[in-house]
């Protein structure tokens, strides 16, 4: 069992044979059951993550289709393509889908795929929870999209401001569906966040102290902490909303001492960190891409880490800049203006460090890097308009106009989607074992970049021209036609660019050249294993002594002595990653799926009657009993003490 690592070069045939034996044993221990049931039960972080990424991009396609319909509707004044009722459902679904069903899940999915590989371990800390999280996420998405298809889509905006979203002004089940969507997606997001925190803190390979962690892992760690402290606010708020709507509580009823602003405080206490929850993983992508393709480690690693942490903290202190127009006390507004502007400093540090890395490295201009460079340009522009919005006086003018729409699409598409697309191209060889087309990659970047700017730059001017958000039409002759026409035309170009991108992905899957372990010459541990990685990730867990393990020329020992016949991983100390104990992970199981089904039944029933909560809890009790009931694993019995 304790053979030294022989990955590519194995001069000693005896050791090569031993490694082959170990791999065969690991394969048996870590592989999932085959077939449909295996698909439901998977406890492999990679297959769950890929599923989640594919699902998230599916919802992205749906959300984009809605965006296309909105651009068609707004392509000319007083258009009658969709009426106001449908339009309101469309923009609500667009926002909710993109935020809750695409951006957050896809970032966490990348974290779940990459973090165990990057820190050199075999799986995430709670593999069954991981599977549960995926099914809950899928159920939430399917529920709300089914409702939308049935013309019961939520229609009060992704922010669902009360009293508009309350019982008196949103009758029917539309907003209830939105509130339950929140329940679903927040459970999924929180599960993934805890997963990532514990995996990162307890499962890093020996030697990977916190100050040697890849920046992407740092980014995911900060993100996961932000999720843990931000999402409860929206869960509480949406639960209050659901109770106001269903069991007559008065949280938001001004006539009975409730308060409409309470909703806004709770919502934005989540809503603003949410933006950073999407953006921080993207900075992790960019750091990885910039470092790899500059052929040097990222400049200013400690500053980058501190900037991430500072962003994480500051992100919680500026929610009120979404509420400047509500008329809060002046002093408070000045504080929140200052805090909102201050967050530009950590963002600035990151941008400057990337520029310094590019400037001092030897740039290899490959397609994934192009997306990262596009990100820098767009994000700086979006950041600058963000600083404008942080200023109370200017915010009073452009708040809730297309200027804001332009701003947040620059920071969310420019700041998160571009790095994400770059990341997809970059890690596609690892995920699939095949190289994407460089040429298609470059074309898709160019078309997407141009299309994006054509679509969203004019929106700045539309906002200054007085066009508010969330209107289904506008009058002719008020100076809004040109900008809207250009934006709609740009949307077509943007759609073409995205289609090219996904065509590239499809081409890669069918025709891509074999990638090899490390086609980009990257530095982090996921490139030290095969592409795609085996179920157990590494035959022997690596150890590291620096921050760019694959670029180090020093020889490092590998970990031996972990059992290969069961799913055993090495748990290390949280700070300096010294080996602490061996831990057995749970294997594949149907119960997480059944628990997700039980929860779904409960949550959906709760749309109609409060008894749904009880029903869901009872069903959940049954499935959780099945989940945790021991099934006589002899190697854990007291009698059989391990050495």
């Amino acid at each position: 069992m304790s053979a030294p690592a022989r990955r590519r070069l194995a001069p000693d045939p005896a050791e090569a044979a031993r490694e082959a034996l170990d791999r065969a044993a690991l394969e048996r221990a870590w592989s999932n059951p085959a077939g449909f049931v295996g698909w439901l039960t998977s406890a492999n972080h990679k297959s769950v993550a890929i599923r989640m990424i594919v699902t998230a991009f599916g919802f992205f396609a749906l959300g984009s289709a809605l965006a296309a319909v909105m651009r068609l509707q707004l392509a000319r004044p007083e258009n009658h393509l969709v009426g106001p009722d449908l339009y309101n459902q469309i923009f609500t679904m667009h926002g909710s889908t993109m935020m809750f069903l695409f951006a957050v899940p896809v970032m966490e999915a990348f974290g779940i795929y990459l973090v165990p590989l990057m820190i050199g371990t075999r799986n995430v800390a709670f593999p069954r929870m991981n599977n549960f999280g995926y099914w809950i996420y899928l159920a939430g998405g399917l529920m709300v999209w089914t409702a939308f298809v049935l013309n019961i889509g939520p229609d009060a905006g992704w922010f669902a401001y009360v009293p508009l979203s309350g019982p008196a002004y949103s009758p029917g089940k539309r907003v209830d569906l939105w509130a339950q969507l929140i329940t679903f997606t927040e459970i999924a997001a929180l599960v993934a966040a805890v997963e990532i925190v514990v995996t990162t803190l307890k499962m890093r390979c020996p030697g990977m102290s916190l100050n040697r962690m890849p920046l992407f892992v740092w980014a995911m760690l900060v993100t996961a902490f932000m999720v843990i402290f931000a999402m409860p606010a929206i869960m509480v708020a949406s639960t209050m909303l659901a109770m106001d709507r269903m069991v007559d509580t008065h949280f938001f009823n001004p006539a009975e001492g409730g308060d409409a602003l309470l909703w806004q405080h709770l919502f934005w206490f989540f809503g603003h960190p949410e933006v950073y929850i999407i953006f921080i993983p993207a900075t992790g992508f960019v750091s990885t891409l910039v470092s790899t393709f500059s052929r040097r480690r990222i400049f200013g690693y400690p500053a980058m880490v501190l900037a991430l942490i500072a962003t994480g903290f500051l992100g919680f202190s500026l929610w009120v800049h979404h509420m400047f127009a509500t008329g809060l006390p002046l002093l408070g507004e000045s504080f929140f203006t200052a805090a909102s502007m201050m967050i530009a400093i950590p963002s600035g540090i990151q941008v400057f460090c990337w520029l310094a890395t590019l400037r001092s490295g030897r740039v290899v201009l490959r397609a994934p890097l192009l997306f990262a460079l596009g990100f820098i340009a767009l994000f700086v522009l979006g950041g600058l308009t963000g600083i404008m919005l942080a200023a109370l006086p200017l915010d009073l003018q452009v708040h809730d106009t297309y200027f804001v729409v332009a701003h947040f699409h620059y920071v969310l598409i420019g700041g998160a989607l571009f790095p994400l697309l770059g990341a997809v191209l970059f890690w596609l060889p690892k995920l699939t074992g095949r190289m994407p087309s460089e040429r298609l990659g470059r074309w898709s970047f160019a078309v997407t970049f141009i299309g994006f700017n054509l679509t969203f730059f004019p929106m700045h001017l539309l906002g200054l021209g007085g066009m508010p958000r969330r209107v289904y039409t506008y009058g002719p002759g008020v100076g809004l036609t040109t900008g809207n026409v250009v934006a709609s035309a740009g949307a077509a170009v943007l759609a073409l660019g995205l289609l090219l991108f996904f065509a590239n992905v499809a081409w890669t899957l069918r025709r891509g050249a074999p990638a090899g372990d490390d086609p980009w010459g990257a530095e982090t541990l996921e490139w030290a294993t095969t592409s795609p990685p085996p179920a157990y990730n590494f035959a022997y867990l690596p150890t590291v002594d620096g921050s760019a393990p694959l670029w180090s020329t020093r020889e490092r020992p590998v970990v031996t002595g972990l059992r290969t016949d069961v799913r055993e991983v090495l748990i290390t100390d949280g700070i300096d990653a010294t080996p602490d104990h061996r831990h057995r992970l749970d294997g594949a199981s149907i119960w997480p799926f059944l628990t997700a089904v039980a929860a779904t039944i409960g949550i959906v029933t709760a749309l109609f009657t409060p008894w749904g909560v009880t029903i869901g809890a009872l069903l959940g009790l049954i499935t959780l009993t099945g989940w945790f009931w021991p099934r006589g694993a002899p190697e854990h019995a007291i009698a059989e003490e391990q050495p």
Partner: protein
Amino acid sequence: MSATSPVARARALDVSALPTIVYGPRAPLWWGVLGLVAIEGTALAMVGVAYLYLRQNFVAWPPEGTPLPRLGAATAELIVLLASVLPMAAVDRFARAERHRLVVLGLTIGIVFGLASMALRALQFAGALGCRWDSHAYGSVVWTLLGMHAAHVITSTIENALLLAVLLIGPVERKDFVDAHINAFYWYVIVGLWVPTYVLVYLAPRWL
């Protein structure tokens, strides 16, 4: 390229001598429960903030026509919960020593305390608050605070009961003791959360 290059057998890091069962912050599950606690604590804190925020909208607190919440059942529950820390601390300790019978005994006592707490909570819902959840915003927020915390008491008691069943029916595994000690940890948090909840719901109206 160290991780991909051949290494001498002597330089391999052999971890086979490391333990497989550990307790406390060394165990990943402990951290997982800590994450859960952070989430639930934040959620409860948010409702607490909402309570204080809604206070501003009222002249009197509780609002006129609503009596002050009665202290009896809640204070009794506070005592029960604080006392329940003792058996659960025993579970914690005996679990680390893998003392099967004593853990079973401690859990049983813990469950009895949990049931007592639930009964006392039911009494509070039945009348101690002096209003319904749909009376006014005050009613909504105090019912929610109590309800959220009650959900935790119920969850944790059920968890203890399940674990007790596992320990009684078997086959008992060593990791069940890790679970037992983590249940104790979770129970401490629930007792800890009852203190600010109690203060907000029952004492704060007397001061605010």
